[in-house]
């Protein structure tokens, strides 16, 4: 892969390593998310999927390499983290939760206005929560809460949407409804990246996939990624945290993403088509 400037709207990873306490959680990963692509990030627990998303949003610093977002700014990226991060007992109504989606335009002090409220109501009905506007968040089921969070993403109206395990603990009907939203975003040419575990669902709905096991196992068309060999390679990922791990020296992996001993795979499919 040669170093080309990021095309407008794409997100390019160049030899990205993200480390906690110097131990890499994402190790020398390169590739690009094309504008308008719909990509699943797959991999076992501890493979660095959430870490990679957080690095793309800019919440975690990269230890080596770079993430190029081109002209995309923070307001162009919507990020839905795993469910645990929000306080569901907080005395806030469903409508207020969804109105938070205007933050990137209204900010901490700006006016939201009638149109903004209308957009939030429309988003609520798009996720099947009409009539829930004034309900306290604490009275919602897990599935309804996740629908409300999707409504917030809708209101954010971002060009890039990152979802971290968005379908955990949801029933089939909720998943089907939310998947329909994902397809709608894809049709609207937004870039959608989702961390997922259900291979069958990914095979049916996601054109592209990234397979991570701390290092990159494969990146490309879903059928090229979800092969038995790749799954075997992912399973062999050591989840260990070696306190005495040796330094990962720069000469082992020159700035191109070839040559590192971890990268035993064909790098042609690091290009998402």
């Amino acid at each position, binding site marked *: 892969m040669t170093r080309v400037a990021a095309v407008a709207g794409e997100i390019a990873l160049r030899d990205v390593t993200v480390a906690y306490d110097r131990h890499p959680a994402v190790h020398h990963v390169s590739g690009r998310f094309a504008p308008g692509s719909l990509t699943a990030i797959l991999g076992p627990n501890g493979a660095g999927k959430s870490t990679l998303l957080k690095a793309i*949003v800019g*919440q975690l610093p990269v230890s080596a390499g770079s993430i190029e977002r081109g002209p995309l700014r*923070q*307001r162009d*990226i*919507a*990020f839905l*983290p795993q469910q645990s*991060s*929000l*306080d569901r007992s*907080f*005395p*806030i*109504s469903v409508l207020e939760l969804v109105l*938070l989606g205007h*933050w*990137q335009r209204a*900010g*901490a*002090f700006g006016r939201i206005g009638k149109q903004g409220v209308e957009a939030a109501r429309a988003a609520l009905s798009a996720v099947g929560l009409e009539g829930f506007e004034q309900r*306290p968040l604490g009275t919602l089921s897990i599935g309804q809460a996740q629908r409300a969070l999707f409504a*917030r993403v809708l209101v*954010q109206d971002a060009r890039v949407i990152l979802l971290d395990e968005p379908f955990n603990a949801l029933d089939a009907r909720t998943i089907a409804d939310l998947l329909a939203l994902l397809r709608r975003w894809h049709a609207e040419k937004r870039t959608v990246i989702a961390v997922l575990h259900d291979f069958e669902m990914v095979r049916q709905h996601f054109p592209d996939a990234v397979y991570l096991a701390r290092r990159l196992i494969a990146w490309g068309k879903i059928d090229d990624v979800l092969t038995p060999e790749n799954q075997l390679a992912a399973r062999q990922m050591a989840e260990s945290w070696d306190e005495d791990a040796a330094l990962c020296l720069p000469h082992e992996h020159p700035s191109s993403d070839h040559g590192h001993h971890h990268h035993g795979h064909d790098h042609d499919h690091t290009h998402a088509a």
Partner: protein
Amino acid sequence: MTAVADFLFGPFAEFAFMRRALVACCALALGSAPIGVVLMLRRMSLFGEAMSHAILPGAAVGFLIAGFSLPAISIGGVIAGLVVALLAGAATRATDQREDASFAAFYLIALALGVTLISTRGSAVDVMQILFGSVLAVDDPALLLLGAVASLTLLIFAIIYRPLLADGFDPEFLRSVQRGGGTLYHFIFLGLVVVNLVAAFQALGSLMAVGLMMLPALAARYWCRSLVSGMLVAVLIAMLSAYCGLLLSYHADLPSGPSVVLLGGAAYVLSLVFGRHGLVLLWHRGRHLEA
């Protein structure tokens, strides 16, 4: 009838110091009670307690330099409180420890330092006054200070309301849409807590300073679902506790600060038992609905 009116309003009609005490407590209630509500929402209910001890060494230094002077003690207290808040916050962020752990360490150091400082020079009377306050000795400058603190608190609170609550509700979301997330607002809020505690310190003393901040807020939680109504009810409960507490202290000849806080405690216990989300309704909820 006049006997009742005399009982309820006589002390305030007759004595200027009672009126001052009441106004002082109402000013405190206006600023402190909404802050208490937010502290509770952010799971920092014990933080106020820690901070009220943390301001002690600063107040002690002010006391040692200038005697029992309001400006010296207040400025010292604010400085000490902010230093402890910043040190604990910095220690938390720099070493990846939990915030409550850092605060526990720093407030204990501050408390020991404060008591040591006072005991080197002060008499038992001074110590009592600092520990228990003197709401009946509130003079004009003190009243002005309390009024200014309440006004400033409400103003700043109104300005940072949205980001402060968004940060408490979903910090990760705020970090994803705004560079730096809610850290700035968090520290502004901590500053407000310190300033309000110093104001309360004058009237209620260091041991009781948190009383009017937390008890009404905790009581209001049993009556209100929404945040705004919770804050209003907390302010009302705080003012009512102040009024009844002062009456109690006058008629029963009890120290005023503890009486006010005790009445706040009574409001909490009543809410716990009889509130809309309280114990009585929990036990006698009636038959469930159809849907």
